[in-house]
């Protein structure tokens, strides 16, 4: 009896470490929406503006990457059936990463592109290196690899590439040395972050969690494997050809390969959903499927952008960025959090009582009706923001950013309710 109990605790890290990352991430999400609302009239024009860059990094570093760190500390040991290499490093990393994020986004906000920005970018790099080191050493002891493992291992590689590229860009703003255009490198930095780092994690984790949540059975993972190779070869090809000559046929071929990889990922998700036993969509699955749909739309827009002179179409990059960050990634994170956080808290609290006395079910851990309202508010806010950005409607942005802020506060409220259960 005691033995299997210790296997549980041996695999998963202490809840307080994971919770720290989750709390910081959820607060970042609310702050990010508040700043968007307070500055709604400045969210227009070219994307290379201090406030837009600052808010974008609150989203990517404070919200998205922060939550991935927490989730990976929890999921990598459990899914790959091994112990996290070091809990202490996970703790230390947090206290380097958090000031790094705050300092870095502040530097963008006031556009202090001198020593300070490079200093905070170095802190971020240090934290990301510690993370990668910790996860790689955790993966070293994995006995049986699965598709999820491949995707997560690749994601770590891209995290490091993104971090180094970001640091080099920060140094370039301080003392220019990059011969190619700064914006072109920025484009590469952003795409490696979104497709390489964030999407690789999302894809790998989706293959594990979606079948579990929907009870899906009897399908093959061929599409997932093809997606893996297409996206990776495509990203390498894009990076390599960009360093030489941008507009070659080879460059466009690699872009199409990445697009095809994303389509194969979506097909795999479709197959998993088709084979599900649990027909009813709960709130977590609703958010997630909306996010996959938005990934499809974003990919269509991204393909278009690759073939046109996107900087000449006003606000096109903002529409694209908003779609990625809010429509696709944030919807997915919120959905997965509604599945993962209640389980972690539930496990912490009730696991020892199962079968011996009545315990709460996961769906009783938060008010599903509020989450339902949040879902429709968020969906409305996403489409309304995209319309307002595309057609430059300030009043539209004011309304949609308000809706998004309200939905993020409902999310915060529900998460607090779960934590206090």
């Amino acid at each position, binding site marked *: *009896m005691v033995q*299997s*109990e210790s*296997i*549980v605790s041996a*695999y998963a890290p202490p809840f307080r470490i994971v919770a720290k990352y989750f709390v910081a991430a959820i607060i970042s999400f609310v702050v990010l929406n508040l700043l968007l609302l307070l500055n709604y009239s400045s969210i227009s024009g070219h994307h290379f503006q201090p406030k837009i860059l600052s808010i974008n990094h609150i989203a990517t570093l404070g919200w998205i990457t922060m939550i991935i760190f927490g989730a990976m500390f929890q*999921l990598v040991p*459990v*899914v790959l*059936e091994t112990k996290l290499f070091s809990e202490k490093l996970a703790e230390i990393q947090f206290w380097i990463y958090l000031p790094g994020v705050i300092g870095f986004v502040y530097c963008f906000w006031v556009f202090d592109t001198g020593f300070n920005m490079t200093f905070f970018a170095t802190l971020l790099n240090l934290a990301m290196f510690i993370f990668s080191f910790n996860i790689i050493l955790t993966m070293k002891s994995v006995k049986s690899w*699965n598709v999820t493992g491949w995707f997560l291992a690749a994601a770590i590689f891209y995290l490091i590439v993104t971090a180094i590229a970001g640091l080099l860009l920060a140094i370039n703003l301080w003392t220019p040395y990059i011969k190619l255009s700064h914006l072109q490198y920025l484009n590469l930095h952003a795409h490696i972050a979104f497709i390489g780092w964030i999407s690789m994690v999302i894809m790998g984790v989706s293959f594990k969690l979606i*079948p*579990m*949540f929907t*009870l899906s*059975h*009897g399908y093959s993972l061929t599409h997932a494997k093809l997606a893996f190779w297409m996206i990776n070869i495509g990203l390498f090809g894009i990076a390599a050809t960009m360093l030489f000559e941008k507009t070659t046929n080879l460059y466009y071929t690699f872009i199409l390969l990445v697009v095809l990889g994303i389509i194969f990922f979506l097909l795999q998700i479709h197959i998993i959903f088709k084979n599900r*036993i*649990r*027909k*009813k969509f709960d709130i977590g699955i609703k958010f997630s499927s909306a996010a996959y749909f938005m990934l499809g739309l974003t990919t269509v827009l991204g393909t278009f952008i690759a073939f046109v002179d996107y900087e000449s179409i006003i606000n096109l990059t903002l529409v694209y960025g908003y779609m990625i960050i809010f429509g696709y990634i944030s919807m997915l994170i919120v959905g997965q959090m509604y*599945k993962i956080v209640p*389980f972690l808290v*539930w*496990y912490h609290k*009730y*696991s*020892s009582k*199962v*079968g*011996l006395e009545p*315990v*709460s*079910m*996961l*769906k009783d851990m938060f008010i599903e009706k509020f989450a339902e309202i949040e879902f429709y508010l968020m969906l409305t806010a996403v489409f309304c923001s995209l319309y307002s950005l595309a057609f430059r409607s300030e009043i539209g942005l004011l309304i949609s950013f308000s809706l998004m802020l309200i939905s993020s506060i409902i999310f915060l409220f529900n998460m607090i309710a779960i934590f206090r259960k």
Partner: protein
Amino acid sequence: MLKGVIDPEIGINIVDLGLVSEVESKADVNIITMTLTTPGCPMHSSISTWVENVIGHFEPEKKVVINLVSEPLWTPDKMTREARQQLGM
């Protein structure tokens, strides 16, 4: 008594889900043969611990052995009619 062990995610107990394939009660030991819905399910050690706890609670004098098998794979048709109705099948 194993009906008290409910999968918290699905809200259905492990017996109706068809996860328990055999219960063998001997003089000094209870042997439970069971499987899980997904191979490598993160819940694997939790669910077996719960089963051990429950059996151990009712018959503390006997040892509990959980035989977690991956073959034959769990399939939806192992579920009872009630469980299927609950899932909206």
